[in-house]
């Protein structure tokens, strides 16, 4: 069936509503990559098996990620007429008990996390209420969604449907108000009005650059030429990051809808989605989404009877970090080596196949339908003076509760770290945090007072990047962190221009001098000199920002570099500078270190302090890790 009028869309909406709120029990299991890694796939099978065995009638639906990565696998259950309840973690072993509790009382209080009385919806005038009437007493002791601190701080725009809808069902997406923005854009607005709305919303590129999306669109629309392209970048390569992957896996249609609206506004008939081959599940769901949209006529010719034609092609990339750079990405799309070229003529004027092209990243596109639907004023009401809307952030590293969140711009990092990330694990101390990946910076813990804001972070010397937040505690060595990111860039530099290719290699050698204790003050000066040339002369932003982590490590953690010059690694990470010893005064002679040592370098009799043979020791740190009384020192 093709959708050609608003009435058709409304009919589909009703169908989707029936799927979203069936007469039977709807069990929703998170199945983004993070959930699957924690065993969600097996949980689905176990629930199916158990429900059949216990004759418990239910529909089991795979959904996206609700962001509570540390509670995976998460399961949400909607019983007709009762509040929706989230449970986690529900492992395979928990399933029999879980299903039994559901079948008996309709709720498993042991694993319940929170309850929602109504559906999270940005578009519905009257959000759907799961529970009719007042909250019954049996659910009162489960925390309400609105009282969960984790969600209180969040505003979900891009992730509005994540965890609620089946990402492989277009009907459910439409039921949540999907494709209404597209219908509004192509039937009620001119392309210029769409661009005007996006410009007015002050949406800025979420890929890292933070360039005004509206301005970019305007430039591309005005560029001379016939054929135009809109492109979507799904290739975040920073270590420790997976927001865009999760977004695409949870709600591929919102990205697609944004791209189609962008195509309409810019005057492009063809869109390309460049996706890293590291995202097999995202790719599968995206392809499914495109098939469904094509089947309903939301892609193809004469979309919604407006005369607008648009098609989308998905192109798999090899996952190179540099292919996040626009010109390298376009080279990749053209089938050439993913190398950047100078952008003295903007890609908005001369991009893919020398035609005007507009590239935005997944998250930017996902914002577009909401801006069109809710209006620019609503969108720009969220955030700070110059940074509007929300940002999806992946919190990882040394935190109690690694998770995926969407917070308004301007949220202080302190809140992101303490209230959403759950703070630093016991017995440790936060030393630094890293944002923006290898192109960003490392900032000391005291700078958590910064707010999530393009300008403020730029002033502090880091950038928002694609939105990763990595907490670093006192067990990490900042010289080692600098080494890690430089090593990453050696492998990921495309190798075209001299300052980046040769510079990164030399930078790593210089840092390695410190990790083996032969670094000097002259080496620091040389790093500075080298970094200047790299920043100024490299071809693309990868090279220009390559020395950034190193420079900020030196700026804020000079004391650690100085300690390394003296041949000491305070954190006990740099292997060439550490020598383990066992403090006999502290040691309880439990023998745990003897059993943990993989090379039998520790020996001893029960009841006396073991001895360590440094000749055999490979400095793996396994003994230190298992010692409860911290008797092993470096």
């Amino acid at each position, binding site marked *: 069936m093709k959708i050609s009028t608003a009435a058709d869309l409304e009919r589909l909406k009703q169908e989707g509503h029936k799927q979203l709120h069936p007469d039977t029990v709807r069990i929703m299991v998170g199945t983004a990559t993070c959930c699957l890694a924690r065993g969600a796939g097996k949980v689905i099978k176990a629930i199916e098996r158990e429900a059949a065995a216990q004759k418990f009638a239910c529909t089991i639906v795979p959904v996206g990620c609700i962001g509570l990565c540390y509670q995976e696998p998460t399961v949400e259950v909607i019983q007709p007429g009762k509040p929706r309840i989230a449970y986690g973690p529900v492992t395979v072993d928990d399933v029999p008990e879980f299903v039994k509790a559901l079948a008996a009382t309709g709720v498993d209080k042991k694993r319940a996390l929170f309850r929602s009385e109504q559906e999270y919806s940005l578009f519905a005038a009257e959000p759907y209420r799961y529970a009719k009437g007042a909250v019954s007493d049996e659910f009162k002791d489960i925390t309400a969604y609105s009282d969960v601190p984790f969600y209180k701080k969040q505003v979900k725009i891009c992730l509005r449907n994540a965890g609620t809808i089946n990402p492989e069902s277009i009907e459910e997406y439409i039921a949540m108000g999907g494709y209404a923005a597209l219908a509004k854009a192509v039937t009620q607005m001119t392309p210029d009005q769409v661009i005007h709305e996006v410009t007015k919303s002050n949406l800025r590129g979420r890929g890292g650059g933070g360039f005004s999306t509206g301005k970019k669109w305007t430039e591309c629309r005005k560029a001379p030429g016939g054929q135009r392209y809109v492109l979507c970048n799904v290739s975040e390569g920073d270590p420790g990051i997976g927001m865009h992957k999760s977004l695409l896996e949870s709600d591929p249609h919102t990205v697609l809808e944004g791209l189609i609206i962008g195509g309409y506004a810019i005057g492009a008939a063809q869109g390309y989605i460049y996706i890293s081959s590291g995202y097999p599940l995202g790719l599968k769901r995206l392809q499914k989404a495109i098939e469904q949209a094509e089947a309903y006529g939301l892609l193809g010719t004469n979309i919604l009877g407006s005369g607008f034609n648009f098609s989308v092609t998905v192109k798999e990339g090899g996952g*190179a970090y540099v292919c996040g750079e626009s010109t390298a990405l376009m080279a990749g799309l053209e089938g050439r080596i993913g190398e950047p*070229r100078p952008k003295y003529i903007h890609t908005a004027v001369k991009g893919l196949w020398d035609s005007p092209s507009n590239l935005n990243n997944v998250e930017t596109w996902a914002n577009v339908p909401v801006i069109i639907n809710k209006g620019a004023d609503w969108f720009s009401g969220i955030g700070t003076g110059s940074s509007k809307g929300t940002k999806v952030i992946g919190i990882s590293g040394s935190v109690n509760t690694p998770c995926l969140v969407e917070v308004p711009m301007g949220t202080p990092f302190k809140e992101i770290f303490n209230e959403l990330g759950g703070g630093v694990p016991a017995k440790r101390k936060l030393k630094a945090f890293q944002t923006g990946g290898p192109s960003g910076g490392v900032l000391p813990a005291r700078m958590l007072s910064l707010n999530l804001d393009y300008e403020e972070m730029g002033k502090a010397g880091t950038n928002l990047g694609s939105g990763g937040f990595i907490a670093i505690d006192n067990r990490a060595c900042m010289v080692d962190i600098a080494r890690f990111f430089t090593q990453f860039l*050696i*492998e990921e530099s495309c190798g075209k221009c*001299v300052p980046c*290719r040769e510079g990164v*290699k*030399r930078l790593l050698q210089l840092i390695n001098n410190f990790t083996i204790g032969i670094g000097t003050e002259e080496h620091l000066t040389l790093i500075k000199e080298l970094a200047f*040339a790299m920043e100024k002369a490299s071809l693309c932003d990868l090279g220009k920002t390559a020395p950034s982590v190193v420079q900020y490590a030196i700026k804020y953690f000079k004391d650690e570099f100085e300690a390394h010059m003296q041949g000491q690694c305070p954190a006990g990470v740099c292997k060439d500078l550490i020598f383990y010893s066992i403090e006999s005064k502290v040691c309880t002679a439990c023998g745990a270190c003897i059993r943990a040592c993989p090379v039998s370098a520790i020996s001893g009799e029960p009841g006396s302090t073991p001895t360590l043979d440094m000749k055999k020791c490979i400095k793996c740190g396994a003994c230190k890790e298992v010692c409860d009384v911290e008797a092993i020192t470096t």
Partner: protein
Amino acid sequence: MPQITIDGKQITAPEGVTILQVARENGIDIPTFCHHEALEPWGACRLCIVEVDEGGRTRLVTSCNFPVKEGLAVTTKNKSIIAIRKMIIELLLTRCPNAQAVRQMADKLGVTGTRFPIENEFCILCGMCVRVCKEIVGAQAISFASRGGNKTVASPFFNRSGECIGCGACVYVCPTQCITMNDVAEAADVYSEGTEQVGYARVMNNWRTRLPLKVCKSCGNPIAPEFQLQVLAKKAGLAPDALDLCQGCKE
């Protein structure tokens, strides 16, 4: 025609050319390593970096591919440009301390040695060989392989190239002379069963490619690689036997 200034000198530049072209035509020297006038600008060596001022906003750009426009003010030498060029040549000198062209450029820019631990490469990855093979010869026999610190120029899969016509354009264009080819009189394939004589052949040492040479029908001297003559005859629409004689015998 755009009016620009380079180092304070008023110049009327032709439409659609680069800063480097205008500078060279006006006798202003800008050092380059990956630029060749017969090839498209590449912008990889970054030695030709200059500062441009467009209505008060200054930035560093590579002159080899920056198009001139009205009112542009270009500075080809200042403190940071010199520092950057020196660092770039120091990096190249670290990579290729024994390449003559690199040493000469270092001398020219006043860099006498390097402060980094040296390597012993000869290729500076300027890409001229790859580009001449693609843009001028049209064979695309070689390309870049790997990335980052492992980047290199290679024939497909580091093996014999089926597209190489043995023209030697890559050898000719290489600034550090690290690409070589030579003609041998008695090439042979050695198998465990025995040896098979190939006769005259051209060996492209860097591309693991050997092309048998065609011998003149009349005098028996080698002319050129057989594959090259086939490609040329096809391109020029000549009869298959049109290139059977060497230049001497034709006359």
